[in-house]
């Protein structure tokens, strides 16, 4: 092609872009009527125009980083600096190389940081840095790394500091976004460090994920206080830069905001508030995995509880920010209390299930009454109904969003009953917070009957009362009072009503989307109860009764209404679940398949059909991860609130861990009491060799500390041995089987470990993970071939997560084994394929 031809194409291309999408074809036909190949060329480019929006928008930083890592690899390892013997490289950061060394006089392990020479040529500056470092060290703050010594050997300036074993926040971020709970924990510790330092008159100036370490026990250490100033990274000090040049016309402002506050980046005077801005960027990145976008462009979604704090930290103007670290800390603490302290709020306390059930019961009763009433006909004929917002008795006249939410939920639930016309939620909104007589409202709304509800809180209970009134004469047709546990609802009413609505939509199989439900109120009630019991299931036989009850109730619902697709899908789910976790039973699986077939005939758009299908594809017999994922994505496509739990599980198997966490958090938003999910979250973290995350999840969901399994994964058999005695899970749990085999193997008692293998293989039908335990037992023993056999089975049939194999320290003895190396290469390729398709 010639440049002239290209220009021709270019002109026409831009001209076409001036037209709306629909008109482009016409325009091109006219403009290039004589030149078909020109038209084709432009059409083809235009087709790519729509696809190329994100193309080339991310700079090639990944490759750049790799180049620079390879740039030079000389090392001090093995050398002696004064009375320090350098053992290993710990890391190489922007401000120097860090080594782990032995202090030969004090016999302790230290970290030595070599400072680049250019930073330390200015002796005055070094002296100031030393003063600050001493001031900071004198605080002895647990969240600030201790500096032992600053000196020079052979003209090489160095800094000796406390050795911290753990990972930097940067490494954490690489494992995917953190949960709000984890971020709060880290944020609280960083603000504690900043508060102490700021009070001592020291500004950090370079708070970023690389400068914050988290020890394996969760203790946060902030590194490198004052080092930024020494390094001259802080532009505000360089008086040669005339004010304004760096930030204004020079356009040095970058596409991605880095961690520097605007005033620091532009060379203005900074104070301690610059650290608070940087903290905001760090917290944002921990939550989302990304840094904040420039002002005015849409950013990532931050969990709503934390959003106000982060927004305020990221204020451009220091005056609009938090003024001191202690204030940030106070706010983070109060959010943490709300999230983690179940005693504090209704949000956690009132079990969602209880709230859900009361509404189901109310809904069913009203429904039942109407159904009977309308079919009976007669004098008390009710053909229209209004549900008023539930009033809170003894409230101080404030609008009750919870009461509104309850009313709304009942309206949604009753709306599809064709025999009664229901006033929509929008019609009853006007009564929110109004002291209005129910019968007056009924007349205003022109309905035959009105449901007047109220609730009252006392101690830890909530009492809900309903009264169904006939408009014509005010006679009470039905009244009922229900008690349920509760707590303070004051600040979370809105969340509560949203959550209830959301939860019910999930639990009751998405009638809003499919529009299909039953014509029988009795069947509906059975179904609702069945879902309640099924939601209580666990991943082992402990709560088998719940699933059996659910099966029975689903069956009754289907008996009453054979066309009840939701109930059939639910029954199929429960059978498939039993077959997997309780006992293998071909009859159950045949029944599950049959129910799904019928359900699909009744309503092909039911998300639960695809969720159950995914269970057919991925269970104790094996797992076709790709096919199962596609079913689940389809379910979620139909109903965005569906399949989060299942998708989290399948992403975990594929090693797509950022998505796993996203789905898990989404599932928790939909249903915060989901025990199945919470248990799965803990176990799955162990299964995918993330013991520290398992520990965090355990603390977050169950307020449990480390357990034997944790120490097994950490390779600490003594601690595991102590904890294995008080095993809280019972002898037939996955935890117990795992510990039984791996504990002796870790202690070198191989014969004893091997004795457990036959039992493990038998139980692996229910817990395929035990194949992996067998593989690891052999690996610890150094039996490479045997280890490979079971490892391959586990990875190929059940859990092809490459990252979890990379992390597994129990496999270290076979890592050099040729077939293992080959296996890992294959796994990595597979993992890349998964990430391409689903990541």
């Amino acid at each position: 092609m010639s440049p002239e031809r290209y220009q021709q194409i270019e002109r026409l291309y831009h001209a076409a872009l001036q037209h709306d999408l629909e008109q482009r074809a016409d325009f091109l036909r006219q403009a290039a009527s004589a030149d078909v190949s020109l038209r084709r060329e432009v059409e083809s480019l235009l087709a790519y125009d729509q696809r190329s929006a994100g193309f080339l928008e991310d700079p090639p930083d990944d490759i750049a980083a790799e180049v620079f890592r390879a740039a030079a690899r000389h090392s001090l390892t093995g050398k002696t600096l004064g009375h320090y013997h350098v053992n290993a490289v710990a890391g190489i950061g922007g401000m120097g190389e860090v080594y782990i060394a032995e202090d030969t006089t004090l016999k302790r392990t230290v970290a030595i940081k070599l400072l680049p020479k250019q930073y330390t040529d200015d002796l005055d500056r070094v002296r100031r840095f030393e003063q600050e470092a001493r001031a900071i060290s004198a605080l002895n703050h647990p969240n600030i790394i201790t500096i032992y010594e600053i000196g020079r050997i052979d003209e090489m300036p160095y800094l000796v500091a406390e050795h911290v074993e753990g990972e930097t926040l940067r490494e954490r971020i690489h494992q995917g976004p953190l949960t709000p709970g984890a971020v709060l924990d880290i944020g609280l510790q960083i603000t504690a460090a900043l508060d102490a330092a700021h009070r001592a008159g020291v500004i950090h100036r370079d708070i970023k994920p690389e400068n914050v370490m988290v020890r394996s026990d969760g203790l946060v250490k902030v590194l490198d206080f004052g080092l930024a100033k020494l390094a001259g990274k802080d532009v505000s000090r360089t008086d040669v830069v005339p004010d304004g040049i760096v930030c204004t016309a020079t356009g040095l402002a970058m596409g991605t905001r880095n961690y520097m506050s605007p005033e620091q980046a532009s060379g203005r005077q900074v104070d301690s508030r610059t650290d608070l801005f940087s903290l905001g960027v760090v917290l944002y990145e921990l939550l989302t995995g990304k840094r904040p976008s420039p002002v005015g462009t849409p950013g990532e979604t931050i969990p709503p509880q934390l959003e106000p704090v982060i927004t305020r930290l990221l204020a451009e103007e220091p005056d609009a920010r938090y003024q001191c670290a202690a204030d940030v800390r106070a706010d983070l603490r109060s959010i943490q209390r709300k999230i983690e302290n179940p005693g504090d709020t209704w949000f956690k306390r009132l079990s969602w299930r209880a709230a859900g059930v009361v509404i189901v019961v109310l809904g069913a009763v009203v429904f039942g009454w109407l159904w009977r009433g309308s079919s009976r006909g007669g004098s008390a004929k009710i053909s229209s109904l209004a549900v008023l917002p539930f009033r809170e008795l003894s409230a101080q006249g404030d609008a009750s969003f919870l009461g509104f939410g309850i009313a709304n939920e009942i309206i949604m639930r009753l709306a599809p009953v064709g025999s009664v016309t229901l006033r929509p939620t929008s019609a009853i909104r006007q009564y929110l917070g109004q002291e209005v007589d129910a019968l007056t409202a009924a007349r205003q709304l022109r309905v035959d009957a009105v449901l007047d509800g109220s609730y009252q809180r006392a101690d830890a209970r909530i009492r809900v009362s309903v009264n169904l009134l006939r408009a014509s004469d005010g006679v009470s047709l039905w009244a009922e009072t229900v008690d349920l546990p509760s707590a303070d609802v004051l600040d979370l009413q809105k969340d509560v009503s949203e959550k209830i609505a959301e939860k019910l939509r999930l639990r009751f199989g998405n009638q809003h989307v499919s529009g299909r439900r039953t014509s029988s109120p009795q069947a509906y009630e059975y179904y609702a109860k069945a879902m309640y019991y099924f939601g209580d299931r666990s991943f082992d036989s402990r709560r088998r009764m719940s699933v059996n009850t659910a099966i029975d109730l689903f069956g009754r619902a289907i008996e009453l209404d054979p066309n009840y697709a939701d109930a059939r899908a639910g029954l199929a789910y429960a059978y498939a679940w039993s077959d997997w976790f309780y006992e293998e039973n071909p009859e159950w699986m045949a029944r599950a398949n049959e129910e799904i077939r019928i359900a699909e005939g009744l309503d092909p758009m039911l998300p639960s059909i695809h969720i159950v299908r995914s269970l057919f594809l991925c269970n104790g017999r094996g797992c076709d991860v790709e096919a199962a994922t596609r079913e689940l994505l389809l379910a979620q496509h139909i109903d965005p609130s569906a399949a989060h739990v299942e998708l989290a599980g399948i992403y975990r198997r594929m090693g797509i861990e950022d998505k796993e966490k996203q789905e898990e958090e989404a599932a928790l938003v939909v249903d915060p009491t989901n025990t199945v999910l919470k248990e799965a979250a803990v176990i799955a973290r162990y299964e995918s060799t993330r013991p520290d995350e398992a520990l965090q999840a355990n603390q977050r969901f169950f307020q449990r500390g480390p357990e034997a399994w944790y120490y097994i994964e950490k390779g600490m058999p003594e601690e595991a041995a102590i904890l294995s005695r008080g095993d809280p899970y019972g002898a037939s749990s996955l935890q117990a089987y795992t510990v039984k085999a791996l504990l002796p193997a870790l202690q070198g008692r191989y014969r004893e470990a091997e004795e457990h293998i036959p039992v493990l293989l038998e139980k692996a039908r229910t817990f395929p993970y035990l194949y992996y335990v067998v593989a690891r037992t052999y690996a610890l023993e150094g039996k490479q071939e045997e280890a490979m056999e079971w490892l391959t089975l586990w990875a190929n049939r059940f859990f092809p997560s490459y990252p979890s194999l990379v992390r597994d320290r129990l496999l270290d003895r076979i890592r050099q084994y040729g077939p293992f190396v080959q296996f890992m290469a294959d796994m990595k390729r597979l993992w890349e394929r998964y990430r391409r398709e689903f990541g």
Partner: protein
Amino acid sequence: MEGSPQEISRLLIAWNKGEQAALDELMPLVYEELRRIARRYRHGVNDTLQTTALVHEAFLRLTRWEDNQWQNRAHFFGVAARAMRHILVDHARARGAVKRGGEARSASLDPDLVSQERAASLVALDDALSVLAAVAPRQSRVVELRYFGGLSVAETAEALGVSPETVNRDWRMAKSWLLRELTQEQSIVGPRG
């Protein structure tokens, strides 16, 4: 090799006046500086290092501000972006060679390494840019500055002496053209590397 700030300014001005030879002298200096900075940045993790930040730092260090010739900044960025392109693409090509050489090396287990596909796609982009340069040199430069130099639209416009609107138009069409070039190539001859 080290060039004084004055020398670098002189070369930039000369290049700006159209002396191609000045660019040949300038390139090794910039290249060396980028490498020098890079050595300090050997992080154990990927995204602590931003291409943009590196280019900017190289500029600050080479010209040292006080020469006050900061109108040359745009031209410097132009050179730095080209140097960056060479460095990254060379590395990506070498990765391909290593892959063909010895697969069994345990380095392939290093989870920090970018994927082979990623490296190959960068090489393919470089080839496509060269093809584009033959028919639309300015579009090719716009991509080089924006993608490899991390320059904003305004900076790119300044560096090329055109309006931001022109940069936007070039950027949009070049992206479509390149994406087509890359995807078509893959479907016909398969991925490179």
